């Protein structure tokens, strides 16, 4: 059976409107691609990060006890709510990554690595250590330590001399952030190796698993406290209880960042859908009379609506066919890339079928909904009005007579026409502005956030006016340490510095913290800095900085404030440090960049509360020369001088190494934002081209009249192009306004994902001129084709246009 005439008519329309249909398919495909990529990436990552973390059978709680033995662990297993318990150890040391250059080393100690049940790691290469002097490294730590399986590394514990250890294998620990991000080497050893290194081979960390570890936090606390109390009753008090959040250290950051990208990708799809609406309107513009004729010969509005809805449905399906597979591939690539950033092993790249169904429905349904607006309008226009259309519309509102009196426009009728035409169809103008402005706002936001992130790094560096920190094995004579370092050539300035791990004081006197297993994430630090320190430049948000040499006063940074609910400037806080209670008044709140939660006080106050008068647990130094090689050499010289004076160094960290840890890994986010904004920009420019082309079609007879009264082709071209550029300029204004709150939102998400408060809202100096250039050139190019067509029409053709 041959095709019914109405469908043949539709095929004819498809033939005639190929360009617009291709643009529609492209616009929707871009949206489908973006949404599919982000939702695929999000679904895979969300599932895998959880799966990977849970696969390690993570400890729900960890208790630090002076010494654990098998009988004690067996007793713990019998406590209420406990599923399993294992003894292990965790020590900090350092590893020499280049001659005289050391990085922090976190050693996890387990008697039998291959049979460990809690917080397990997976051997990926080599073998488990069998004899003392052997170590396996976390796979991401190998390049950081400059080590290879089969090779050796030099390791030193605070209590021992440097020793070479053989790397027997590489493991994957899904519960840790990648070593390169933290600039920390993770190693796994047996107690025998700790003994070999000169450390305390006793196991002191009790790992517990409980029923429903991810559920009731209060219940988990009760269980853990119950175990601690039982241990205390047995004569083994716990110095610290750690209940880490039951998730990968970067899970919440990853989730918030990818969710934000998902929102932006959905916005791309919505923009694509809006463009479909405008393109459909432009597709229908020359069909106005034909639709009227069809209605005159008996077609109902619903029949015509169904006809064009089918067309858009087909366009949506074509776009989905194009965008979906590409989006899936991109989403998987995104997941793989992010997995690498998160030290995740992706067990599967599968995505649930329902997600594809939702994406297909969204890809087809959202543009269809957007297109139904112009389709409905076109099919419900009165037949008489459509048949009487002459192509010279009266403006729907007052004709903006004032425009012609503007000095800039008064001399050029083409410009007056351009501006009036742009303002004539308000609905279409708003849609086009919406498309371009959203793209522009996102583009500027991307560059703003990039600038803010760079500024963040600059400010983080500016806040630390020192080049290196030296941590001592234990608090040692401040005077001896300072005297030893003063004699080191190249050292410009030296200050004592002490840092301690602290927890809010509890009524039961237990030291309960929410630190992750790596000991860094989620920790609260107490930092003692001298009054008048030249190395600290506090950015005060509220209250005052430390001013009294020995008063019970502390200053918090924003991270610490977030960890101490209910605390504010002027309030008193009680902290537990080194088993003692430190009570103080909060006198100030400061902003710090890329710094963990910290509580600041003076050395004298710390010493008084911890009984360490005249001692320091570290030093901060600045050097005459701050390049990497000079700093490494100066640190080595300083360590030698300290050693010669009997001061034992646990670890030295240069700011350059810290910068490496913080530097680059958020640029992937900014890159994705930029790509997304350019995709949106493409959609916006397509929208502009479509709007201008539709306007030209509608005004075909008007152009003929202009030509008939003497307008030259160049005048018409100038008018049409000026209209496009005018709309583009308007969109830039809107984009600038929208980009500020958008930047604030993204800066907040990125800031939270990078250890701190929201990034500052910075307006990039380059963002506006770059986007202005892109959009004006694109608008001129997009308008040039309809302008050329308009100027090529002969008067006879144009007046005969129906």
């Amino acid at each position: 059976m041959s095709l019914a005439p109405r469908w043949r008519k539709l095929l004819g329309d498809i033939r005639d409107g190929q360009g617009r249909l291709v643009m529609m398919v492209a616009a929707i495909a871009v949206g489908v691609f973006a949404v599919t990529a982000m939702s695929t990436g999000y679904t895979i990552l969300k599932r895998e990060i959880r799966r990977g973390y849970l696969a390690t059978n993570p400890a729900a709680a960890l208790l630090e006890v002076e010494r654990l033995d098998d009988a004690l662990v067996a007793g713990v297993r019998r406590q209420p709510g406990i599923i399993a318990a294992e003894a292990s150890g965790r020590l900090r040391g350092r590893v020499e990554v280049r001659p005289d250059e050391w990085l922090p080393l976190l050693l996890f100690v387990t008697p039998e690595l291959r049979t460990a049940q809690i917080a397990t790691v997976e051997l990926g290469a080599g073998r488990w250590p069998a004899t003392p002097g052997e170590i396996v490294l976390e796979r991401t730590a190998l390049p950081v330590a400059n080590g290879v399986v089969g090779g050796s590394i030099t390791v030193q514990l605070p209590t021992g001399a440097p020793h070479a250890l053989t790397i027997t294998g590489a493991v994957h620990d899904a519960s840790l952030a990648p070593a390169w991000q933290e600039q920390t080497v993770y190693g796994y050893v047996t107690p025998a190796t700790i003994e070999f290194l000169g450390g305390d081979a006793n196991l002191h960390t009790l790992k517990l698993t409980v029923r429903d570890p991810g559920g009731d936090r209060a219940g988990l606390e009760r269980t853990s406290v119950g175990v601690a109390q039982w241990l205390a009753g047995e004569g083994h008090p716990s110095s610290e209880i750690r209940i880490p959040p039951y998730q990968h250290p970067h899970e919440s950051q990853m989730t918030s960042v990818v969710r934000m990208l998902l929102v932006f990708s959905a916005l791309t799809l919505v923009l694509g859908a809006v463009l479909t609406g405008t393109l459909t309107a432009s597709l229908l513009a020359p069909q106005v009379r034909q639709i009227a004729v069809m209605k005159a010969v008996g077609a109902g509005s619903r029949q015509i609506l169904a006809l064009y809805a089918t067309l858009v449905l087909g366009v949506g399906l074509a776009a989905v066919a194009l965008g979906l597979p590409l989006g899936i591939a991109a989403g998987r690539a995104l997941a793989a890339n992010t997995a690498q950033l998160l030290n995740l092993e992706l067990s599967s790249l599968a995505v649930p079928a329902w997600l594809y169904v939702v994406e297909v429905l969204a890809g087809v349904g959202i543009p269809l909904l957007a297109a139904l607006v112009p389709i409905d309008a076109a099919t419900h226009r009165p037949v008489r009005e459509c048949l009487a259309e002459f192509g010279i519309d009266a403006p729907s509102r007052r004709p903006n007579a004032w425009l012609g009196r503007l000095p800039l426009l008064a001399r050029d009728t083409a410009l007056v026409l351009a501006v009036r035409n742009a303002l004539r169809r308000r609905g279409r103008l708003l849609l086009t502005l919406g498309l371009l402005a959203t793209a522009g706002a996102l583009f500027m936001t991307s560059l703003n956030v990039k600038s803010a992130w760079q500024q963040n790094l600059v400010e983080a560096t500016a806040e630390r006016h020192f080049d290196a920190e030296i941590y001592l094995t234990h608090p040692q004579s401040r005077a001896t340490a300072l005297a030893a370092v003063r004699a080191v050539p190249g050292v410009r300035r030296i200050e004592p510095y002490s840092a301690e791990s602290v927890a809010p004081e509890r009524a039961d006197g237990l030291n309960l913290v929410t630190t992750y297993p790596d000991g860094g994430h989620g920790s609260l630090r107490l930092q003692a800095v001298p009054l008048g320190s030249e190395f600290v430049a506090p950015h005060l948000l509220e209250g005052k900085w430390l001013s009294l040499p020995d008063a019970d006063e502390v200053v918090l940074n924003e991270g610490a404030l977030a960890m101490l609910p209910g605390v504010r400037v002027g309030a008193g806080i009680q902290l537990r440090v080194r088993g003692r209670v430190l009570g103080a008044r909060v006198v100030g709140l400061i902003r710090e960049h890329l710094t963990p939660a910290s509580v600041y006080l003076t050395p004298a106050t710390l010493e008084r509360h911890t009984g360490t008068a005249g001692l320091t647990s570290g030093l901060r130094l600045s050097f005459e020369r701050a390049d990497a090689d000079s700093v490494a050499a100066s640190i080595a010289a300083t360590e030698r001088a300290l050693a010669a004076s009997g001061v034992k160094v646990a670890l030295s960290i240069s700011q350059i190494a810290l910068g490496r840890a913080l530097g680059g890994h958020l640029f992937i986010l900014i890159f994705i934002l930029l790509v997304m904004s350019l995709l949106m920009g493409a959609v916006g420019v397509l929208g502009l081209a479509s709007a201008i082309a539709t306007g030209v079609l509608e005004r075909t007879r008007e152009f003929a009249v202009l030509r008939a009264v003497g307008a030259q082709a160049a005048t018409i071209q100038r008018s049409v192009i000026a209209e496009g550029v005018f709309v583009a300029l308007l969109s830039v204004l809107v984009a600038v306004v929208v980009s500020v709150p958008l930047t604030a939102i993204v800066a907040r998400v990125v800031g939270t994902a990078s250890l701190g408060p929201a990034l500052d809202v910075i307006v990039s100096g380059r963002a506006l001129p770059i986007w202005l250039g892109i959009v004006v050139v694109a608008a001129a190019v997009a308008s040039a084709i309809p302008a050329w067509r308009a100027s090529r029409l002969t008067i006879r053709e144009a007046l005969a246009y129906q």
Partner: protein
Amino acid sequence: MAEQNQPRSIPLISLRGVSKIYESAAGRVGALEDVDLEVGSGELVAIIGKSGSGKSTLINLLTGIDSPTAGQIRVAATEVHSLGQEALARWRGRSVGIVFQFFQLLPSLTVAENVMLPMDFCGTYPPRERRPRALGLLAELGIGDQADKLPTALSGGQQQRAAIARALANDPSLLVADEPTGNLDSRTAEDVMQLFAACARAGKTVVMATHERDLGRYFARSVTLADGRVVEPASARS
């Protein structure tokens, strides 16, 4: 006035006190004022008047393309003025054939497909019968050999014949034409008028707006409009 506009047969069309006022930026413009008119079955009636007299408005109201501001329009048993847009479309497709001055054939469809279009939209004939019927109508109107050409390949007269064939597609009882010869040369216009006359002889009611008084001999009755009012109700020809 009403009795002066009586048909000679049973009225198929009846207009009672029909007015149409358009709102525009310039204010309210009365296109038709208080028009009463009846047209009988099988009549060929001309609506005559100068440009702006209200001819096209009257044609639009008769076909339901436009709705009256006041008054009643009845065609056969249908109260046209009370129908909604969807119902109007259905009624128009089945009961009225419209012929436009500029033919208004869809350019992307062949001539035969243009004729099949009303049957397709209204579902009046089974799909397999539509093309044979379209070809038959085109043959009757003397352009059977043009059936598979696109409208642009046809002369003006041929396009208007095709448009008449399309108007007859659903075998409506009423044919309405708005200046159907206005875009044709005089010889072709005569041919087209003979086709309309043949339709009337075949029992169809034909109402035609025209300003060409030369064609007056074809009409059983002429109704003259001026400034939206009927001023010359009847002619004497049969």
